[in-house]
């Protein structure tokens, strides 16, 4: 019964008259909108309307929604006529031509209105319009200059929008129906509908520097078509063909007319489909984006934001030179951020998203990201094209994100991969024995871990993407955050945590206090067994996870005041964009870069090849002519150094500003060929943490923790570790560089596979790992500490005895630790005494312990050191030319067998 009435009520007039009513409202609201709108500062004036002028905002909404209604009902009006075949009613060819041409102006009015917003999408839309018009043969330039103007000047578009386009639309309406006045009832109903929309829904406005360029909803179909073709002129041709079809439609025979209409219908459906696809699934750079991501993007079609027409004028005015964002109406007094992230310049939305033009708190905070910089949001926040796209891309590939090396080695010892160099991503870990082992013991340290709370990260809250290193809460910022959380910050200063590149050592500590423990070593701390100290007199410290540290000896660079970031550039830390397998491939800095006796590798600041270094040099106001050290391995600039005309290197601490002059290596380092194969670390590393070995088994009934998912688990891998010692490193050979390098026990362990679900047997590994101890000393280790020390040569701890029998001597070794039944080597050995090592013996394919020949050569010098002091002339000569010195040896010398 009620349905026909409802239908009658809804169909209060024809689509044409609804469009006509909307056009009238649109024109009147346009005149009112011209009062606050300033085409010379288009975006600023529109954002000012939204932020400070509720009446202006209401008028803008009215203009926008009436235009949308006009457009939709104009299209429906055309469809109506074509479906009823009433197009033949218009006999006059000129009127029909005018109506066809006015369709173009209908599109022009809509797109010019979109352009006049002056946001990034509007700016680019003007350029596309200009380019399309220019592609029209013969008249292209005329059309373009008349209807799109030039870049950065909206005068032409504004004039054509308010004058030419509007007049032509009204002329067409009059030509068509001989009046412009709709029925009063229709007009009032249309007015009320537009009023409702205008009060409730805000007309969209994007940011002036947004990277997501999406045209108006009715033209995103054309944007998609443009994406699909390399020749935009085809779009003009297509529009021309479709308009020609419409123009000739009344003169076609009936069967051709039906066919044409079907073609138009199919084209319409295709266009609608493309529009929907583009609206829902296209994002930044016109790349595919999930519907959910698009939902939270800055520009929505329907923004529920009721206009508060009765609100008083806002007392806070944002200065002209500051970013136009509603956030600053409340948070303009926020301090704490450095100049490079000054909110007055870059606003808040660039990092935190939200709604930049909503004036109520709840609306402004909609879709806001509380903790920007996590990898789940980095593409929308720190990593947008306006900010740090390079770095966010590099970070995704860095070892600190993927943990590839750690995973490869762990899977290798579990027998789940045959290669130590396979690539892995920690986020893709499954639930195999090795994966579970990693989840229980290692997977907590990677940048992809989410930081979910504000405030300084707790000890076990590692990761957080960019925040892991760059977010710093001062005490004041922490207090401010607490006040905000407690909602009592009304009259207190708002202090934002700092975001900068002053990364202190403690940011590295929570992850790098494990495994090689380089952060601890650097500051001189060695981890003892949990909860105990071996030496009660030693200086000790307890970490938040209850591990006990004992002070041994700090790195000389630490003692001089240098921090981690003084040596390690962003390319070391955030990756260089390549997928590296192990850490020594990813790290570019070497001792020789600063401690060089030859010509220093350097580059002038003006010639820096990468944007990031250029930006930092610019921020630090470095003279473009200053020469800075360039690493020899990967040619990265050390921006905190400078090389003077005498080839001297000076380094400035990034955190303290203290200057240091870098010293060249001592003569002993470069003298003769005797030590030419030695890496600097071989002699200058004071100690590295060394364990004797560990046993790993899975305890099905013990409660554990999955570090990757952050959830407790039933059943966990347990590592039963042995002693942890701080002693000089073991030496071995890097076959890739043919250098003698430092090593430490890496995976000396037994694994009880049977304890894990479906596991079989037990496995033992004796794999040493390359290490950069980070316990560098100015003085090198003694000759005897290598040539006469079984630990350094790889035999393990014990006693090396040189026995003389007649004219020959011989070495014997008495190990301190018992032999491991798995390989009959002492528990702490890397290789057997005067035996070739079994493979695999290292966590790298290129690392190996000394061969028997090398062991003999080392011990041969060791036999000399039994009698000759290492500072004696004989040993000094031997360093210069060993064979010559050997030839001159006296008859008293007892040479090794």
């Amino acid at each position: 019964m009620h349905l026909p009435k409802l239908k009658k009520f809804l169909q209060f007039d024809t689509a044409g008259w609804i469009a006509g009513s909307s056009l009238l409202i649109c024109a009147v609201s346009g005149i009112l909108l011209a009062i606050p709108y300033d085409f010379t500062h288009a975006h600023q004036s529109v954002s000012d309307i939204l932020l400070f002028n509720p009446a202006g905002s209401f008028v803008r909404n009215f203009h926008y929604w009436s235009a949308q209604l006009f457009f939709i009902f104009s299209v429906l009006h055309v469809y109506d006529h074509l479906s009823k075949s009433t197009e033949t009613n218009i006999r006059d060819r000129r009127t029909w031509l005018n109506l066809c041409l006015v369709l173009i102006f209908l599109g022009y009015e809509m797109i010019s209105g979109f352009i006049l917003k002056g946001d990034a999408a509007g700016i680019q839309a003007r350029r596309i319009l200009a380019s399309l018009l220019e592609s029209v043969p013969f008249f292209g330039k005329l059309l373009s200059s008349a209807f799109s103007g030039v870049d950065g000047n909206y005068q032409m578009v504004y004039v054509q929008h308010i004058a030419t386009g509007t007049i032509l639309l009204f002329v067409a309406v009059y030509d068509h129906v001989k009046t412009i006045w709709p029925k009063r009832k229709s007009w009032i109903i249309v007015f009320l509908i537009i009023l409702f929309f205008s009060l409730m829904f805000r007309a969209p406005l994007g940011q002036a520097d947004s990277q997501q360029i999406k045209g108006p909803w009715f033209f995103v179909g054309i944007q998609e078509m443009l994406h699909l073709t390399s020749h935009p002129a085809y779009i003009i041709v297509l529009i021309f063909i479709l308009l020609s079809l419409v123009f000739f439609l009344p003169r076609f025979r009936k069967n051709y007319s039906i066919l044409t209409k079907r073609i138009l219908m199919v084209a319409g459906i295709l266009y609608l489909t493309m529009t929907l696809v583009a609206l829902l699934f296209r994002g930044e750079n016109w790349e595919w984006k999930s519907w959910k991501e698009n939902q939270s993007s800055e520009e929505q079609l329907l923004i529920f934001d009721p206009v508060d027409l009765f609100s008083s004028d806002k007392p806070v005015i944002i200065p002209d030179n500051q970013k136009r964002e509603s956030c600053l109406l409340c948070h303009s007094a926020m301090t704490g951020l450095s100049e490079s992230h000054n909110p007055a310049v870059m606003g808040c939305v660039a990092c935190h998203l939200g709604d930049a033009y909503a004036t109520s708190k709840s609306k402004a905070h909609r879709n806001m990201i509380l903790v920007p910089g996590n990898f789940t949001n980095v593409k929308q926040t720190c990593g947008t094209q306006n900010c740090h796209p390079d770095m966010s891309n590099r970070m995704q590939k860095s070892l600190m994100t993927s943990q590839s090396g750690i995973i490869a080695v762990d899977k290798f010892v579990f027998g789940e991969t045959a290669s130590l160099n396979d690539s892995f991503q920690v986020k893709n870990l499954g639930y195999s024995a090795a994966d579970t082992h990693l989840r229980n013991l290692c997977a907590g340290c990677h940048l992809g871990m989410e930081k979910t709370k504000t405030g300084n990260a707790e000890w076990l809250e590692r990761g957080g993407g960019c925040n892991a290193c760059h977010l710093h809460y001062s005490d004041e910022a922490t207090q401010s955050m607490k006040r905000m959380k407690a909602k009592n910050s009304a009259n207190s200063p708002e202090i934002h945590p700092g975001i900068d590149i002053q990364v202190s050592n403690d940011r590295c500590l929570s992850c790098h206090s494990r495994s090689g423990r380089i952060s601890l070593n650097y500051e001189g701390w060695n981890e003892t067994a949990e909860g105990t100290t071996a030496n009660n007199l030693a200086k000790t410290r307890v970490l938040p996870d209850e591990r006990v540290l004992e002070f041994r000896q700090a790195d000389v660079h630490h003692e001089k005041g240098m921090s981690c970031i003084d040596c390690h550039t962003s390319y070391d830390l955030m990756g260089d964009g390549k997928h590296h397998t192990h850490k020594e491939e990813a790290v570019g800095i070497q001792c020789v870069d600063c401690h060089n006796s030859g010509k220093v590798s350097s580059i002038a600041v003006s010639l820096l090849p990468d944007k990031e270094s250029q930006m930092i040099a610019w921020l630090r106001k470095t003279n473009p002519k200053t020469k800075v050290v360039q690493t020899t391995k990967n040619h990265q600039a050390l921006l905190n150094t400078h090389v003077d005309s005498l080839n001297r290197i000076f380094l400035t601490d990034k955190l303290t500003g203290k200057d240091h002059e870098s010293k060249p290596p001592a003569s002993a380092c470069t003298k003769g060929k005797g030590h030419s194969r030695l890496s600097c670390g071989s002699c200058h590393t004071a100690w590295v943490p060394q364990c004797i070995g560990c046993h790993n088994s899975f305890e099905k009934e013990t409660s554990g923790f999955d570090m990757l998912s952050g959830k407790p688990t039933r059943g966990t891998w347990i590592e039963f570790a042995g002693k942890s010692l701080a002693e000089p490193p073991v030496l071995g050979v890097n076959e890739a560089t043919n250098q003698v390098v430092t090593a430490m026990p890496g995976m000396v362990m037994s694994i009880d596979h049977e304890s894990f679900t479906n596991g079989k047997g037990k496995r033992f590994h004796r794999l040493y790992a390359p290490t950069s101890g980070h316990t560098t000393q100015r003085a090198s280790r003694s000759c005897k500490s290598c040539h006469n020390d079984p630990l350094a040569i790889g035999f393990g701890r014990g006693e090396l005895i040189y026995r003389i029998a007649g004219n020959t001597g011989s070495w014997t070794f008495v190990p301190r630790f018992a032999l491991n039944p798995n390989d009959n080597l002492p528990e702490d050995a890397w290789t057997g005494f005067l035996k070739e090592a079994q493979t695999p013996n290292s966590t790298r394919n290129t690392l190996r312990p000394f061969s028997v020949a090398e062991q003999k050569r080392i011990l041969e010098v060791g036999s000399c050191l039994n009698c000759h002091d290492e500072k004696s002339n004989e040993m000094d000569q031997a360093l210069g030319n060993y064979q010559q010195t050997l030839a001159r040896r006296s008859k008293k010398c007892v040479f090794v067998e």
Partner: protein
Amino acid sequence: MSRRMAVIMEKQKLITRKSFFRIGTTLICGLVVWIWHRLSGVQTERENRLEFRHGKDFPMGISYFEKYYIFRNDHTVRAFLTKCTHAGCRIGTNTGTILQCNCHGSQFDAETGNPLKGPAIKPLQEIECRFDQKKGQWVVRLQPFGKTT
């Protein structure tokens, strides 16, 4: 009737009032189009005459200046328009030496201006970039490279 009068009468028949107004309208339209033609491009030409000057110490790689960018490598300094050759959008920097059009997704190699990813198929327009020895400055004009005016 003289012969001359007959010719005039004949002409009067040829140029009717309707055709007179038609010709008049066409001439007026032609005049409007001609003036329009003279007016159009004034702003573009003014822009083309502009010179942009920069100090000699350009950093390596891309230096982006909105309407154009300058690329410096070990051997040369070249300038290109930042107008996408596909549909005219302004392209921006992406990662490394890649330039990105955020309207339709084209990418260009900054060093050569060649397209790396479609829909664009034409290289970016190289523009005049010369070194002014007297003032020690790089001078850029928005004129196509090699077409001095």
